[in-house]
């Protein structure tokens, strides 16, 4: 028997877990103890070893010999021959970041796909039994819906909860085993996250042990009892979540203090105006007035659906504008197409990197130069060598880590992909740079570099409009923040910017008509 301390029971212990990939130590002798009934968060940047840990626990990836797993009161077992079947038998239940749910199928069908369809005579599906069983599960987990309703009719957070219920349904009691959630909120819009977290807190209160993997710090702080931070395959520490601040976590994850993550803004600000927007109406925008100063980072705080993305798109000529007047550097500016916007010196980094920015399958070089090819075509010859050397310069200027500029862009990590997209625009020295969630799916380390690149650009005279959902990050990164609500700018907050104040302003109802 392992030496268990007198305190709370241990649901799962990991002892001396290591994993070597091709000579690289991805996980270095990890010790982890998860108490029964606690929500234990596992945090870390990319390559920190958290995914490796989860994969070993799931039995998908074999650990190096020597590591041990202890489940509840049972004898320690070697982690090198752990299998998915053993993990399941031991009560480990996994819900992955893109839960395999089927929106077109009913809730009951989704649940049955995780267990089995109850059968009637002749092997037909006993729908009545299935619906009854599903209704009972939905009730137990407090999801208010009919089992016959299509999953798509549920809100996003509840769809995720159905995936969780599916994973948990075949257990008899709420206390056994461990529910392991791998970035469950990754695919959820911000507004849905709270709903899911509340449900998780409910499960935990009922005695469910949860191992919660995420890189959204605010979530972790709001839901976890204890936090383990990994860095470079090693455990930094396990700490109580009570009283912990985001800044502390960032320091643990990155290994350096927060003020180096968000470079501080220059103290003096100019009053020179780069862009003025008057009475802009487009889709959800009902008359936006906004002034962007030269060389500043102007944050836009707004809830999902507030029109923040549409604002950026209409400035870039990629969203139909109904009315309004704009001036860029004192001259009238009417963006009719992305081409016109680019010609005027506007650059735009869209929110969805995969769907709207990356040319996957193409090289890093082709991605950097996308849209600028004609500048390398002279006298019927394509100047490949010149393009290549320009690309290599941009790679080093914009801190992109690649083996070669000919490398396919999709083999890069998320942070480096984002830096490629940023570099595509920054290398043209735009007058105005529009950024929609530039740190989406990027860990804290790369995030620091992205903000460093933004500051470099503003020092060279670029003005930036920045949309970021996380109020804390927005407050740190912006010189001023404009609050967008009900299709209008309701307030402009000057430094010092308080994140809680921003959250309030985004949500409050005053000032809207």
């Amino acid at each position: 028997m392992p030496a268990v301390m007198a305190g709370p029971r241990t649901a799962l212990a990991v002892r001396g877990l290591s994993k070597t990939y091709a000579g690289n130590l991805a996980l270095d002798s990890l010790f982890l103890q998860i108490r029964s009934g606690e929500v234990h968060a596992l945090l870390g940047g990319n390559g920190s070893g958290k995914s490796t840990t989860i994969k070993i626990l799931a039995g998908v990836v074999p650990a190096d010999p020597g590591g041990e797993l202890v489940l509840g009161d049972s004898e320690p077992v070697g982690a090198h021959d752990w299998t998915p079947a053993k993990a399941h038998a031991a009560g480990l239940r996994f819900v992955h970041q893109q839960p395999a749910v089927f929106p077109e199928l009913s809730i009951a069908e989704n649940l049955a796909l995780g267990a089995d369809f109850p059968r009637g005579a002749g092997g037909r599906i006993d729908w009545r039994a299935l619906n009854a069983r599903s209704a009972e599960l939905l009730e137990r987990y407090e999801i208010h819906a009919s089992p016959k309703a299509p999953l798509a009719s549920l809100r996003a957070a509840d769809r995720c909860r159905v995936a969780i219920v599916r994973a948990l349904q075949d257990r008899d009691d709420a206390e056994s085993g461990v529910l392991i959630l791998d970035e469950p909120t990754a695919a959820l819009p911000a507004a849905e996250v709270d709903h899911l977290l509340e449900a998780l807190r409910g499960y935990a209160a009922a005695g469910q042990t949860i191992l919660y993997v995420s890189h959204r710090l605010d979530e972790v702080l709001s839901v976890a009892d204890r936090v383990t931070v990994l860095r470079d395959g090693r455990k930094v520490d396990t700490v109580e979540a009570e009283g912990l601040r985001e800044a502390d976590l960032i320091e643990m994850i990155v290994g350096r203090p927060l003020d180096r993550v968000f470079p501080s803004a220059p103290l003096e600000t100019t009053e020179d105006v780069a862009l003025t927007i008057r009475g802009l109406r487009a889709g959800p925008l009902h008359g936006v007035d906004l002034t962007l100063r030269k060389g500043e980072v102007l944050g836009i705080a707004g809830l999902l659906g507030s029109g923040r993305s549409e604002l950026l798109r209409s400035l870039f000529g990629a969203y139909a504008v109904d009315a309004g007047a704009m001036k860029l550097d004192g001259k009238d500016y009417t963006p009719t197409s992305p081409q016109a916007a680019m010609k005027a010196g506007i650059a735009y980094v869209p929110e969805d990197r995969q769907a709207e920015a990356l040319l996957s399958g193409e090289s890093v070089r082709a991605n950097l130069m996308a849209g600028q090819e004609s500048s390398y075509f002279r006298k019927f010859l394509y100047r490949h060598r010149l393009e290549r050397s320009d690309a290599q310069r941009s790679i080093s200027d914009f801190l992109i880590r690649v083996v070669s500029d000919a490398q396919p862009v999709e083999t890069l990590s998320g942070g480096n992909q984002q830096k490629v997209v940023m570099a595509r625009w920054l290398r043209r020295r735009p007058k105005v740079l529009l950024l929609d969630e530039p740190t989406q799916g990027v860990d804290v380390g790369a995030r620091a570099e992205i903000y460093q690149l933004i500051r470099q650009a503003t020092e060279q005279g670029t003005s930036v409009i920045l949309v970021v959902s996380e109020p804390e990050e927005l407050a740190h990164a912006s010189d001023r923040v404009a609050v967008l609500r009900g299709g209008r700018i309701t307030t402009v907050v000057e430094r010092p910017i308080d994140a809680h104040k921003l959250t309030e302003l985004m949500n409050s109802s005053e000032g809207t008509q």
Partner: protein
Amino acid sequence: MTTRSRPRPDAVASDLPAQRADDPVVTNTAASGATNAPDGPPVVRRGPQHTVAAFGSRILRQYSLVFLLVASFVLYSTWSKTSSVFLTGDSLRVMVAGQAVIGVLTLGILVTMVAGNFDLSVGNIAGLSQIMTATLYAKHGFGLWEGIVAGILIGGFVGGINGMLVTILRVDPFIITLGTASAILGFVDWYTKDQSIVNGIPAAISNFGKDNLLGIPDIVWVLALVAVLVYYLLEHTPYGRNLHAIGSNRAAARLVGIRVERSIAMAFVINGLFAGVAGVLMLARAGAGNPQIPPTLALTALAGAFLGAASFKVGRLNVPGTIVALLFLAVNITGLQYAGVANWINEMFTGLSLIFAIALAAVLSKERTVKKTRKSA
């Protein structure tokens, strides 16, 4: 709306081994973010995958079709059933000349395919241009060059219709071009009343279909010229690069200022012009206008292009690969015919090669996805 990056299911293998871009792993799930080495210069680690064996396997993969081509060539040159006829100048000339029409069609279709579209009507466009050119010579007194230019322009015109329908109606090009292909057949049937045009074709045209220059058939020179043109267009002009960008990610291409619709419509016009060239070559080879259009031309062109994407720049449609694929198909079909297999081998081999090429692309892409998944920690 946030979509985290995931490996594209249709992502195809690249010519680079999945390399380590940074420390410690290259991930395909960007959801957990970027690298954890924010400081310091890029570190290139030469792991075990940079060995001679890895290099060898890359070469093997990149040039597998070339090896297969050489192997089948050697086979038919030495096999007792075929060796007496296969390796003769005349037989090789006939074999390569037989690929000229389909080769020009394949290179043309490549232009639309690179931009993520394709054209099932190329064969019928070529057939139309062939019979129309013959008619213009025989019944409307067109001169040699007037007829050739008109034949090519007819192809470009129909390509333009395809392009407008695809970009304005925003309907899947599969449906549109299947429709135009059928409409062309009907038009040709009505226009020709199913009559061949044997008289009135300029001798210069039919001689061009038979003569050689420096021991190589004239029409193969045309194929070579078209190959160089398409290669230049796709790899060495901004327009070609834009087509690649559109094929990779249409929304992203639009947001970097590429005029997507215009570029795609233009690709269909270019494709149509090359189909017109193919039509004139058909006329030159046959020496007469034929109202019966071979039904499998477009499918063979697709097979050639897909098979071509499995070599040289693996996973990417490319001209050299396409040429090798065409030769591979020609050598095997000719060889098997010499060996006594009946004519049905033509369609059979082409169809199976198409399936094989697509299956190969799927396997290569899967292999890489697995590799990347294993490496993400």
